[in-house]
């Protein structure tokens, strides 16, 4: 059962680590310093929190989330640290294309683990899923990072809230230990929201990759529903709504404070929907036979 004390320690460690890195990087008054502070700060904070939670405990890694945290997450951090936009875009594409194959590596989805022909996805379906999820991650990563360059603090709040909601939803979906990674990510991005400004975009980019991976692992290896995975990953994109509204019509230009509020509130509303659905499913699945075990018995 998730230990709230350990989670609290992980959150504090993530936040402190991110803060220290950002403060050090701030001394580099350069674009590199900005990107390093956000990317390395968020990445280091999330990894420190993951370590405290026992999510990185074995080398070689033993499960999908460990594989992602040890191999691809650091590459996502390096990607967001790159100052040249074109190179960064290419690396984003490479990382986006690599996440899902790494997560399902040697799993029953793509390997005959239970005898010849037992793999769950045919090669054609596998390729389609790899390409589809790569496009989804790349597009969302780019879109959220771009918005964060304009409105770093509010988008950071939205992503931090999404990460926290993802943590609880994945835990309710049957992956109690892995879901806690979302708390570490939320803490790291929360620091970005509080410290604000120029470090947000690279850090949010790193967090987006982390959230995507957690959602894919939750969907494929635990009981996270496809609907909840889509809602949670799409949630930060709703922060674009006020800006898109303003672009469509000058008369629809909203007050700055209202724009900021909507950038935070809309994603969190979507997260709330996912949480409600997850709680309902948890209660229904825990009910067992009528008149017998309930969710409290399971816990």
């Amino acid at each position: 059962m998730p230990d709230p004390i350990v989670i609290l320690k992980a959150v504090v460690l993530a936040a402190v680590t991110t803060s220290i890195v950002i403060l050090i990087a701030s001394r580099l008054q350069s674009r590199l310093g900005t990107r390093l502070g956000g990317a390395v700060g968020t990445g280091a904070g999330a990894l420190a929190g993951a370590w405290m939670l026992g999510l990185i405990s074995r080398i070689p890694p033993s499960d999908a989330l460990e594989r992602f945290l040890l191999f691809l997450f650091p590459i996502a951090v390096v990607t967001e640290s790159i100052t040249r936009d074109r190179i960064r875009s290419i690396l984003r594409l490479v990382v986006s294309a690599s996440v899902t194959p790494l997560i399902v590596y040697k799993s029953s989805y793509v390997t005959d683990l239970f005898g010849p022909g037992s793999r769950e996805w045919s090669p054609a379906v596998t390729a389609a899923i790899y390409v589809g999820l790569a496009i989804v991650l790349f597009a969302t990563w780019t879109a959220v990072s771009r918005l964060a360059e304009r409105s770093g603090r509010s988008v950071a709040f939205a992503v931090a809230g999404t990460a926290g909601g993802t943590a609880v939803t994945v835990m309710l979906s049957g992956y109690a230990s892995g879901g806690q990674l979302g708390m570490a990510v939320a803490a790291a991005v929360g620091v970005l929201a509080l410290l604000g400004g120029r470090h947000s975009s690279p850090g949010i980019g790193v967090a987006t990759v982390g959230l995507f991976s957690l959602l894919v692992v939750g969907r494929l290896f635990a009981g996270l529903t496809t609907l909840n995975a889509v809602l949670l990953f799409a949630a930060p994109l709703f922060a674009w709504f006020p800006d898109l509204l303003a672009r469509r019509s000058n008369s629809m230009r909203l007050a700055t404070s209202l724009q900021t509020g909507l950038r935070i509130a809309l994603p969190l509303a979507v997260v709330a929907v996912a949480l409600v659905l997850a709680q309902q499913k948890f209660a229904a699945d825990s009910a067992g036979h009528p008149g017998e075990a309930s969710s409290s018995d399971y816990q």
Partner: protein
Amino acid sequence: MNVRLMSFATLITMIAALHVRADDYALDVTHAAVSFQISHFGLSMTHGRFKDLKGSFTIDSAKPSASKFELIAKADSVDTDNAKRDEHLKSPDFFNTKQHPVVSFKSTAVKAIKDGYEVTGDLSLHGVTKPITVKLSGGKTAEFPKGVTRTGYTTNFTIKRSEFGMDKMLEGIGDDVQISVSFEGTKK
């Protein structure tokens, strides 16, 4: 000369008659069960079983060391009579069934003991393979239905799940897992 030849032929025939071939059995999944129980916060034992089993075994009465046992359970078939708990058990927190879909045991050494066999073999669980030794008791035979010879064995043993890499939530869910295996096989 003829007497000697006759005696030799008789001896050969007697030896041939005495030699008992090993019997191969297919697991009768309707009469096979792999169940476990594990501590929940030290308060009670939670029970579960695997519903999807397959296997086979060979019994060589004349040469017990040539006997073999193999049992395979689909990890995804774990059933503790609670859908939410089963979902959790299948996740990376416990069995991680998408990564390690099979729990299996394959014997490597068999020794005859009173009322059964002492079987040493490789238990593969959660991607980790470790040798264990269990005592099988049983071996009675019966004919059911008519024309089908069957035999069966039972064993109980305990493992530590952390030794097989299942080390999450040890503070609430016990490390010791008591396993009970009982099975029948029909002679091929």
